[in-house]
Every structure is written in structure tokens, then in C-alpha cells.
């Protein structure tokens, strides 16, 4: 297990270098630079040149990249041009919001979609299977930003039930322990704030959940059908075991492996979905941060945000690998 984690983390280093290099390359190729974009329109040529020098933009791109890597090794991602604050801090502030939103959405999606897919698979060809198919194919076909807007229209426009943007009402805050506002509110003992935080979470989380339900229920259905055709399921029937017990003890554990594999392959799509949902609901996570950073060519911030998404991506894939080893004895090596 330790071996797996270390090889994975070491393997992530070249990927990170490549990703950051690509971002640097793109920025270099792109017309216009941050100094021009960020300074007021009436700034003089001299002011622009000064700013360029201060940010190192006048130096060759490879020198800029070298410095970036050198700083990275010291956990320093530089300073954001726009916010005039260390990128590391900015990301540290925003990351919990992204994680909190994704956490709730993923948990809801799994709780809803896995049983849906299972029911469809176990009733293959019947009406209920067709209904689940319609739900899941609609789920993967509806653009999440549109679903988000419809939810806003209905739940905040007509019903006035949930707020349509932000994380907490203006002026309300909780001492940060975990970074998850809902958890922190409970730790601080403020149940009111907890409920408020949930209300703010409701629409973005639901939008993200709906986007995932389609994918996850489809995967689950296919995996359960495949697992049901394995010989050992026959063995279990021949033992005199009830259908429900077979599903619980033999079918689901075996179906879990392909389900997790494909969720892993879809992680990229899920992260993309979360960026868009953050922008739609002005959720203060790294998605919106990145979006703002890109639009003003805030190079350190852009590179930092992209790098943190890549690290998140690698970390989630590592979690999936660890899950495999826990569930599948074939990967644990021989005892004999």
C-alpha cells in the first residue's frame, strides 16, 4: 500500500511539470499580457514597463518558468497580480469551498444513482428499467448550467426557497476549523448558521448531483448486469441463497470494482462540471477563482489554480487505487 502511494505521488511530479509548462507555453503564445490588462487605461508606457519588470514579465519565458519551479519546490506559487496576495493563500481559502460542494454532490449522487442503477439492472427489460434509462440518459444530456438556471428559476424565483449564489449570507461567518462551512457551524454550535449554509449549498449541490446521477446510474446498471452473468452467482443460487442476499453479498461487491473504475475515468468530466456550476452560482471555490484569473491573465494564479485541479485529479485517482486494494484481494498479493 505504501509502495503504491509513493509510486503514484512520484509519478505525479512529471505530470505536474508538464501541465504547468503547458500553461506557461500557452500564456507565452497568447497575445497581450497581464501588465497591459490589469493597469488602468490611463497608465503610461513607463508604468507598464515598471510593472512588467516587477512581475518578471520582461524576462525570457524559460527563466520565468525556472523561477516558478524553484519557488514551487519551496511551496511558493508566487503572488497573484490581481489580488496582490500569495497564490498559495488564495487557493487555500477557496479550496475548501470546492471540496465541500463536490463532497455533498458526490454523496447525494451516489446515494441516489447507485440504487437506481441496481434496480434497473435487476429488473432488466421491465418498465422500471426503461424509466431509469430515461432518467439517466436525460441526466447526461442536460447541460448543467441550464439545469442550474432552471433550478434557480423555480426554487429561488418562484418559491423563494433557496438563495441562488454565494456560500453564506453577507456578514455571517464561522470560525474555520475544517473549512467546510456546514461542519464548522456545527462545531461552533450554531445550528442556524448550519441550516443557512445548507440552504446556500442546496442549488449548486443539486445541480452537480443531477449531472452525476445520469453517469453513475448508467455505469451501475451495466456493472450489475455484467456481475450477474458471472458463474459464481450461479453457484450462490445453487447454494440455496435468496436473491436479495446474493445481490448484497456477491453481486454488489463485484460490481463495485467496475463502477469505481468508470467513475475514475469520468472524474475529468465531473471536475469540469463543478467548474461550471461554481461559475453559475458564484460559488467561491477555485473554479470561479480560476475563471477570474484567466480572464485577466493573472499568470501565477492561473498556474496555481490549474495545478491544484491537477493535484486534486491525481489525488482522487490515488484514492480509487487504494479502494481497489481494499476491496479486491487479487491485488493484495498471494498469501500462500
Amino acid at each position, binding site marked *: 500500500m505504501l509502495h503504491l502511494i509513493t509510486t503514484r505521488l512520484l509519478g505525479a511530479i512529471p*505530470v505536474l511539470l*508538464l*501541465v504547468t509548462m*503547458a*500553461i506557461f507555453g*500557452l*500564456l507565452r*503564445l*497568447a*497575445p497581450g499580457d497581464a501588465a497591459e490588462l490589469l493597469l488602468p487605461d490611463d497608465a503610461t508606457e513607463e508604468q507598464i514597463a515598471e510593472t512588467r519588470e516587477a512581475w518578471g514579465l520582461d524576462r525570457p519565458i524559460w527563466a520565468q518558468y525556472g523561477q516558478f519551479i524553484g519557488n514551487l519546490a519551496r511551496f511558493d506559487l508566487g503572488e497573484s497580480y490581481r489580488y496582490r496576495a500569495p497564490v498559495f493563500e488564495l487557493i487555500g481559502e477557496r479550496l475548501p469551498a470546492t471540496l465541500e460542494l463536490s463532497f455533498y454532490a458526490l454523496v447525494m449522487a451516489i446515494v441516489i444513482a447507485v440504487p437506481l442503477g441496481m434496480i434497473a439492472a435487476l429488473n432488466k427489460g421491465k418498465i422500471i428499467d426503461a424509466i431509469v434509462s430515461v432518467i439517466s*440518459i*436525460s441526466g*447526461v*444530456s*442536460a*447541460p448543467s*448550467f*441550464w439545469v442550474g*438556471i*432552471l433550478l*434557480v*428559476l423555480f426554487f429561488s*424565483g418562484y418559491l423563494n426557497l433557496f438563495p441562488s449564489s454565494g456560500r453564506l449570507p453577507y456578514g455571517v461567518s464561522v470560525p474555520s476549523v475544517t473549512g467546510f462551512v456546514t461542519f464548522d457551524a456545527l462545531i461552533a454550535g450554531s445550528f442556524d448558521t448550519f441550516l443557512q449554509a445548507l440552504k446556500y449549498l442546496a442549488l449548486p449541490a443539486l445541480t452537480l448531483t443531477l449531472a452525476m446521477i445520469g453517469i453513475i446510474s448508467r455505469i451501475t446498471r451495466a456493472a450489475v448486469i455484467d456481475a450477474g*452473468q458471472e458463474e459464481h452467482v450461479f453457484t450462490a443460487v445453487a447454494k440455496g441463497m435468496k436473491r436479495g442476499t446474493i445481490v448484497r453479498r456477491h453481486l454488489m461487491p463485484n460490481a463495485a470494482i467496475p463502477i469505481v473504475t468508470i467513475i475514475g475515468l469520468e*472524474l*475529468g*468530466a465531473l*471536475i*469540469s462540471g463543478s*467548474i*461550471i456550476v461554481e*461559475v453559475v452560482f458564484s460559488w467561491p471555490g477555485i473554479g470561479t477563482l*480560476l*475563471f477570474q484569473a*484567466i*480572464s485577466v*491573465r493573472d499568470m501565477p494564479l*492561473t498556474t496555481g489554480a*490549474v495545478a491544484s*485541479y*491537477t493535484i486534486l*485529479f*491525481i489525488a482522487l485517482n490515488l484514492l480509487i487505487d487504494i479502494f481497489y486494494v481494499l476491496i479486491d484481494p487479487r491485488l493484495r498479493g498471494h498469501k500462500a
Partner: protein
Amino acid sequence: MKFDFLNLKFIIGAFLLGFVLFLALFGNLITPFTANKQSLMDSLLPPLSGGHILGTDHLGRDILARMISGARVSLAIAASVVVISGVVGVIVGALSGYLRGTWDLVTQKIVESFWAFPPILLAIAILAFFGQSLTNVILALTIQRWIPYSRMSRAQAMVLRSLAYVESSRVMGGGLAWVMRRHILPNLMASAIIVGTFSMATAILAEASLSFLGLGVPPQIATWGGMLAEGRSYITRAWWLAVMPGVGIFITVLSLNLLGDWLRDQYDPKKTLNLI
């Protein structure tokens, strides 16, 4: 290969896609308005009023005319993306699987690195840095979309190269181009078409997302994503502004997913599961 055309997935999918195609090609015959014709007097008219079947937006532009423009843009971009990425992906993957060795090693590394980016990040970065244009949207969407084709083709080419008839063709002196054209590429077509159908669906979604974020197609061209972004601010006063373009995206993507599902079912060997 016998196709089962009486399948519900095929019928609904083909009908919806046919409808969108019809709108894109002949939509101009239905509405007298053009996509960018402003008329502030007629702003925010609800559907079925003043001769506007789907109503008008905040600048009094006809929603139906803009929807038709959106359909054209979406389909044209998605089709270009799918064709370019399909050709690149299948060739790269087939060569990897057939040649193995260094070529395979290098392309696998490239595939891995491209895959380390969540797809939309790279597209956002390219469009933000290089500016909005149709070509840049196509580039941004193609840059990762060839990967699924190449993975599929690589796996299948590896199987194909070891088949007796392909091997004999090679031993008999068939050159690389000959073997690829005669034996490898034709066998990849079916899977490539299935991957392509689903890929077209996600390309339409991605283009709409980018245009929605204001990074995709330039704003002077009406797109579904752009219309949604504009209509968002009027959501409580004029729901049709944001709802209509969403419906357009939804039915187009849905039709492609249905057709993709149907195609995959047709080729699925599990259908003929032998019970005896």
C-alpha cells in the same frame, strides 16, 4: 450486420436529430426574422406574440431565428471537432497498437499528459489566451477529444495485428500503409462511429458551456450557450430567454446519446448470449 430500426431509441433519436437538422438547414423558411435584427420596441415579447413563435429577447431579437443560428453553429462545430479528432485519434491509436515500440511509448506518454487535465480547463485556457473565434473553439475542443478514439483504436489494433490474416498479409510483404488501409482501419470503423456519436454529444455540451462562460464563439454570432448566458439575467421576467436555448441543447445531445446507445446495442455481442 442487421440493424434493428424498430427500436425506440433509434426512432426517438433519429426523429429529434432530424428535427434539429431540419431547423438548421431550412429554419429560415419558417421565420421571417433574422438572428441579429434588433427591435427595441418588441423586446421581451413572450412566445406566440407579434409573429414571434418563440418570443423575443431583451433587444427584441427573434428567439427562433437565434435558435436556428445556434443549431447551425453547434452542429457545424461539433461535426468538425468529431471528424478532426476522429481521424487523428484513430490513426494515432491504430499506429500505436500496430507498431508498438517507441511510437507507442511516446504517444502513450502524450495521451497520459493530456488526460491529466480536466477537459474543460485546457479548453478554457486556450480560448482565454488566444481569444474567441470559431477556429479556436474547434481547436480547444479537439485537443483532448482524439484521446478516446486513440485508446479504442490502439486496443483493437493490438488484437488485430495478431490475427492470422493480418499477420500473413504482413509476412507476404504488405507495407505499413497497405496493412493499415486494408486490414486495420476498416475494422476500426464501427467502434469509431460509436465513439464519435457520443463524442459529438459531449462536444455540443462543451461548446455550449464555453459560449455560456463567454469564452466560446464570439458574441456577435448567436449560439445556444451565449443566449442562455444573456437570458440568465432576465430569468424571472422572461423565462423563455433561458429555457428555449437549453431545450435546443438538450434535445440535440439527447438525440445523439440515444443514437449512440442504439448503435452500441447493435454491435453488442452480449445480445446473442448463448444459453445452451
